[in-house]
């Protein structure tokens, strides 16, 4: 028998809990935990929850982005970034996570899933370095 992947379990939980009321949801959750423990996957529960988050985000049109910068961003820029993300990924909602990182020297870095838009000074200096070496 093929092994059940984390992705499979997360998808199953999401599908079975869709459009359910509170009482039903309780049973679904109980069953889900039962299955996970039966398959000896409790140790992977963190990953399952992560995967569940990704699946539900995808279906609900939520985009999670991590934004790193050297200084705290102004509200105006934050709004601009949010609009940009909504437009680029056709998202209904965005969840932005801000991080302050001194090492970036300047500029911002946006991480969405496995995509990165890096406009930081650190990255650009590195690119310039590569360019001058290969030239």
């Amino acid at each position, binding site marked *: 028998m093929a092994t059940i*992947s*984390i*992705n499979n379990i997360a998808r199953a939980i999401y599908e079975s809990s869709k459009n359910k009321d509170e009482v039903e949801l309780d049973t679904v959750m109980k069953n889900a935990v039962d299955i996970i423990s039966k398959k000896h996957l409790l140790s992977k529960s963190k990953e399952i929850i992560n995967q569940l988050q990704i699946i539900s985000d995808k279906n609900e049109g939520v985009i999670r982005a991590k934004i790193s910068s050297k200084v705290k961003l102004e509200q105006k820029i934050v709004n601009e970034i949010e609009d940009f993300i909504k437009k680029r990924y056709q998202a209904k909602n965005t969840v932005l996570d801000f991080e302050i990182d001194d090492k970036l020297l300047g500029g911002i870095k946006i991480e969405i*899933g*496995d*995509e*990165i*838009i*890096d*406009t930081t000074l650190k990255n*650009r200096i590195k*690119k*310039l370095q590569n*360019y*001058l070496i290969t*030239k």
Partner: protein
Amino acid sequence: MTKNYIVENLKKQIESFKDEAKAEKVGHVIEVFDGIAKISGLSDIKASEMVSFPNGEKGVALNLEEDSVGVIILGDFTKIREGDEVKATGQILSVPVSDLQIGRVLNALGNPIDGKGAIKTDKSNPIEKVAPGVITRLSVNQAVQTGIKAIDALIPIGRGQRELIIGDRQTGKTAIAIDAILNQKGQDMICVYVSIGQKDSKLRKLQTRLEEGGAMDYTIIVSAGSSESAALSYIAPYTGVSIAEFFMDQGKDVLIIYDDLSKHAVAYREISLLLRRPPGREAFPGDVFYLHSRLLERACRRNKEYGGGSITALPIIETQSGDVSAYIPTNVISITDGQIFLETDLFYKGIRPAVNVGLSVSRVGSSAQIKAMKKVSGTLKLDLAQFRELEAFSQFGSDLDEGTKNQLERGKRAVEVLKQPQYAPVKTEDQVVTLYALTKGFMDDIAIDQIKSFEEGLTEYARRNAKTFYKEVIETKIWTDAGEQELVKAIAEFKQSIQK
């Protein structure tokens, strides 16, 4: 050279640097081991796409799984750590190609390793390319002269052909390949020698040998040594053929030697097992046939409308104690257009090159042979076949009739004539003269131990005294009656002169 000049120059360079912010797909290393990395993320990556690691190392995505990507690392994997950011490049791995690569020794990524400085080029070819289609091809009709009598006469190789050299260890497989390269001098051929998993000392010896023979003027060596990772051994032949294609695209003829594909298959097996692909026969993965067929299909002869040029491939396979029915040998035998069998027994009997003429074939090469050679070698094949049959039979007794005895004697001389020392290629015209003398029976009254010196003397004498014959063979590829008479006379004269 002032400080200002350097600063100005640097300024200019920096000004010409353009940087655009763009979205990049990244993943993170989950685990690294034995030249393999497992990477999360990289959701849109394609098969055999190149990825880059933070320290500049490159990798190739081979396994695309549900939540991870299996990557082979081309280079040093010890500096790659768990959690490192990996970027997808959106490109298939490509190698630099240039005319300046001729005479150089390159690694599997196409970079020079001979310490003669960098090769500046802005051109590159992807290492994986679909082989030329039917419409662009031309059938093989022009010969590759290897300078080895046994091969040029009996197992002729044409331009665009794939001829396997197969045999046990220490039977002279590489020697044949090297002789073939040495003989390409002045034949308008570029040679690419791909060394896969060989000892560096052997490669060095080979390079020196080629330099001494003046062959490095038209030869490129691509090497993935045995101290390097299996990933590099795996891509080296593809690198070699990509470089060869660069020259074929210029309409040139290229000879490429893969030394050897058994080690290539072993390297691929190692990678596949580490990537947890299911093992099949002899633990090779299921696609090991495709591994070699897609490589060897890229050898071809293209027609004029598509630019001409050709790639002739001489793959080498090492067998274990003569077992040609193992997995890889049978695969490659069925892919190629013929094979040259080398045997340990023959080698130790002193028959060198140790070609087993009976088992070796060339499926397309005969149409590439020049007419003169065809004429002399046709009867030779028959002579040898009959000789082999009689040889076994005649060991039982000495009561043989005259005809059988003659056949035996002729066969012994044929075997003697086909012996040839290493690094001593023979010109086609000389081969024709020698084989003519043999098949027409002019050597029947020469003692066997005198054959070698007779052959040398004869070609030298004929070169001076049968000029018409030589001219005809070189120019029209066949002799006329007048030329033949002249040669017969020259042979008779020479025989008289040595009998005195």
